[in-house]
Structure formats: structure tokens, C-alpha cells
């Protein structure tokens, strides 16, 4: 079913240095390939050379050190789902991982690929953004760290330069934080997000001390609902239902979805309101347990 007869070469990188050299010469990185194969087949990407990074050991594994969980870029969604550490310490990421694709896809697809493909409907971005996760990027000029949020520059565009790769995602554990992820798809299994919402809250002395709201599939990049966040800061949680309703309306106004095959813009906006409120209530319950 190849629509175009494309020709490209293939090389397997075994070290980060080797990989960066290949990338700086114009190679396109491939890890799980579950998105890339389709983009190539449909002619959206036409690589001259694929650089297989899937065997680079340094990019694998989930570790915890000094209160920070590090997720190697090659961590598969199945590994995220099966990780006790992820499930216990960052359940919001577990919620998004278990809803991504099917088990067959999750066995191959990686978190690094999900982020670097920079799809507007990327499921792992909203939870990582509300967790304040950092991306460790390595390249010819050494390594740098940026907020995961700042990786996304447009549809399939990232802040990484041609000779850089995502090394890992770092999530600092904040004990008091309650976070939740909700996704609306056309059905339960194997559905691309119509919209998705992740929220996080920190409550102190009965008031919202900090709050983050990230929306997926409602803009070219995962979107922070910053006005809604500002509105919530300092608000009394005894009045949660009312303030969350108002915040959800603000978040809805901040979103700018398009109409496509999955849903129209009006429906998406309305669902942003509904799901933001539900997610905030979930996050509050979790924050209360942890407070």
C-alpha cells in the first residue's frame, strides 16, 4: 500500500556521539517508528537516511534520583504503564500512557518519539507540562535543559536543532501536587484525542497555591490555559465547584481548536470546559489526599 515509492538508506546508531554525527549529516532519527512509518508512506516526510536510535542504551530506562524521576527518551509506553514508579509517583502520566494507542503500539512507541513528532494531539505532553517536566537535550554543543512545554513550536516542529536529540524527560516529584489527565476520544481503545486535558494543583491552608492546566488537540501545540491558572491562584478550595466552573469557562475561551475529521471546533471548545472542570476536581481530590 505504498503510495510513493521512496528510497532512503538506513543506519543503526549505537552511541549518542555516533547518532549526533549522523543527524548533523542530514539523517532523520527513528525509534519505534509507529508515527514515522505513516508520515513517510503518506509523503509528509521524505528522508534520505534513517538513523535508528532504538539501540542506544543511554536513552533507555526509568530511574529515580534525589526526588527526580528520569524517563529515557526510548522508554516505551508499555514500560511507562508497567512501571511501579510511574504509577505511584506520577499517576497522571500513567493515565495518559494507558490511553495511548493500543497495546501493540505501546510495545513499540516511545515517549521521546511522541514528543518529538510534536503532534497537536500528543498525549504525553499535557501531563508532562502540568508536572513542570524538563527535557534534557544533547547535541553537538553539549547538553541543555528546557521545559517540555517549550519543545513544541508548531505542528511537527520542535525546538530541537537538526543535530540534537531528546535524551530524557526529568520530572521533579512534588509531594503535595495532585494531578489528573482526561482524554476524550471517539471510543475507548485506539483513538486519537478529540481533546485532552491535564491539570495539577497544590493546595496550602485551604487555598490554591499553584495550578497548571494543559490542553491537547485544541491548538497547533499543547496549550497552557494561563488565564484560567491565574484566576485559580489563591482561590479558596471550599468553594471548588464554583471556582472550577469559572476557570473551565476561561480555559474554553483560551483554546482555539480547529474542525477536522474527529470533531468540530464548537464541540471541542465545549468539551474543553467539561473536561477541564472534571480534571480539576480529580486533581483537587488527589491533592487533598496528599496534603
Amino acid at each position, binding site marked *: 500500500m505504498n503510495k510513493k515509492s521512496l*528510497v532512503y*538508506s538506513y543506519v543503526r546508531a549505537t552511541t549518542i556521539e555516533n547518532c549526533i554525527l549522523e543527524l548533523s549529516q542530514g539523517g532523520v532519527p*527513528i525509534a519505534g517508528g509507529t508515527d514515522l512509518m505513516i508520515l513517510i508512506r503518506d509523503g509528509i516526510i521524505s528522508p534520505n537516511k534513517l538513523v535508528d536510535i532504538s539501540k542506544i542504551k543511554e536513552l533507555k530506562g526509568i530511574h529515580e534520583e534525589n526526588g527526580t524521576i528520569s524517563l529515557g527518551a526510548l522508554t516505551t509506553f*508499555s514500560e511507562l504503564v508497567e512501571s511501579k514508579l510511574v504509577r505511584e509517583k506520577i499517576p497522571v502520566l500513567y493515565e495518559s500512557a494507558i490511553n495511548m494507542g*493500543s497495546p501493540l503500539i505501546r*510495545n513499540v512507541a516511545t515517549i521521546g518519539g511522541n514528543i518529538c513528532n510534536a503532534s497537536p494531539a500528543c498525549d504525553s505532553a499535557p501531563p508532562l507540562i502540568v508536572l513542570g517536566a524538563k527535557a534534557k537535550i544533547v547535541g553537538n554543543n553539549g547538553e541543555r535543559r528546557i521545559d517540555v512545554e517549550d519543545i513544541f513550536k508548531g505542528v511537527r516542529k520542535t525546538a530541537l536543532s537538526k543535530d540534537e536529540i531528546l535524551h530524557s524527560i526529568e520530572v521533579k516529584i512534588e509531594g503535595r501536587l495532585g494531578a489528573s489527565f482526561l482524554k476524550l476520544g471517539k471510543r475507548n481503545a*485506539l483513538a486519537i484525542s478529540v481533546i485532552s486535558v491535564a491539570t495539577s494543583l497544590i493546595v496550602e491552608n485551604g487555598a490554591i497555591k499553584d495550578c497548571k492546566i494543559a490542553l491537547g488537540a485544541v491548538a497547533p501545540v499543547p496549550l497552557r490555559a494561563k488565564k484560567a491558572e491565574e484566576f485559580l491562584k489563591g482561590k479558596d478550595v471550599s468553594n471548588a465547584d464554583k471556582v472550577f466552573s469559572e476557570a473551565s469557562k476561561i480555559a474554553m475561551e483560551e483554546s482555539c481548536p480547529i474542525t477536522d475529521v474527529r470533531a468540530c471546533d464548537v464541540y471541542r471548545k465545549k468539551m474543553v470546559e467539561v473536561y477541564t472542570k472534571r480534571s480539576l476536581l480529580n486533581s483537587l481530590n488527589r491533592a487533598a489526599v496528599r496534603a
Partner: protein
Amino acid sequence: MNLDTVLAKKEEFEKKIRIIVNGREVEMIIPTTERLLDTLRNRLGLTSVKEGCSSGECGACTIILDGKAVCSCLLHTVQVDGSSIVTLEGLADNGKLHPLQEAFIKAGAVQCGYCTPGMILTAKALLDKNPKPTEEEIIEAISGNLCRCTGYVKIIEAIKIASGAAK
């Protein structure tokens, strides 16, 4: 890239790979763009591996790659160099059907049969890892394998039979 460039650098667009398929070591020279699905079907004659949606949504092309059920339509063959692959042809032992195959027959879990190879391999990968799955775990495991005939009830029943949870 034009044809002359491609021909001049032909060796760059082919790779020698070595994989283990159904317990047998195979060495082949494969174009770098070839999908694993096509290699298994067209070069090795393993036609139990079906092409359905070609985009990882239907599970008809499921194989077991190093112990995990995956879609062979979303992999380049060169990516799996050094790996071990099981297709449905590798399940029967000297003409004796695998317990999952027996269970699918016993439960009547096959209608048109197009999803069956992928379904059985997904079930095998599940049972190899989790010999006594709950019904929820079975449903979750096969959620990437679409069946348009059975309504799934008998497939779930068959997997339960193979796991010893039903008769």
C-alpha cells in the same frame, strides 16, 4: 533522489540482516525501505501475517517480536536485525496445534479468520507474560486487534479456555 544516484550507491539501500523466525535463523539482503510485513509474507511465505489497515490500527499483521506483540506493518525489516520473531506458523509443534489454536476451535472463535492469526499471537504474548489474566486484562490485551465478525465474546472465551480459566 534520482535513479542514477540510487544505482550508484545501491549497497547503501540494502542491508544484510539476520533474524530468527519461528526458531530458524534466516539471513537475507533486504532493501532498507521494506516493511517487516512484506518480508515475512513475500520472502518467507508466512502468509498468516495479514495486511489490513497498514497503519497499526487493526492488528491483522501482529507478530511476536522478542516476546512482545507488535504490528509488522509499522516496522522496517532492517530495524529488527538480530531479533527473534514468532508468527502463527511457529505455534504448532510437529503438527500438533498450540493450546490457543485448540481453544479457538473449541470456542468457535473463528469466523472469517482474517484477524485470527494476530489475535492468537496477541493472546500468546499475553499468556506467556500473565498465564492467568482476568477478563479485563484479556479485553485490554486484544484491544489493538479488531474483529468484525465475532463480537469478541468467543475470542475472550477461547483465551480463557487456553489459560485454564474456562472449559
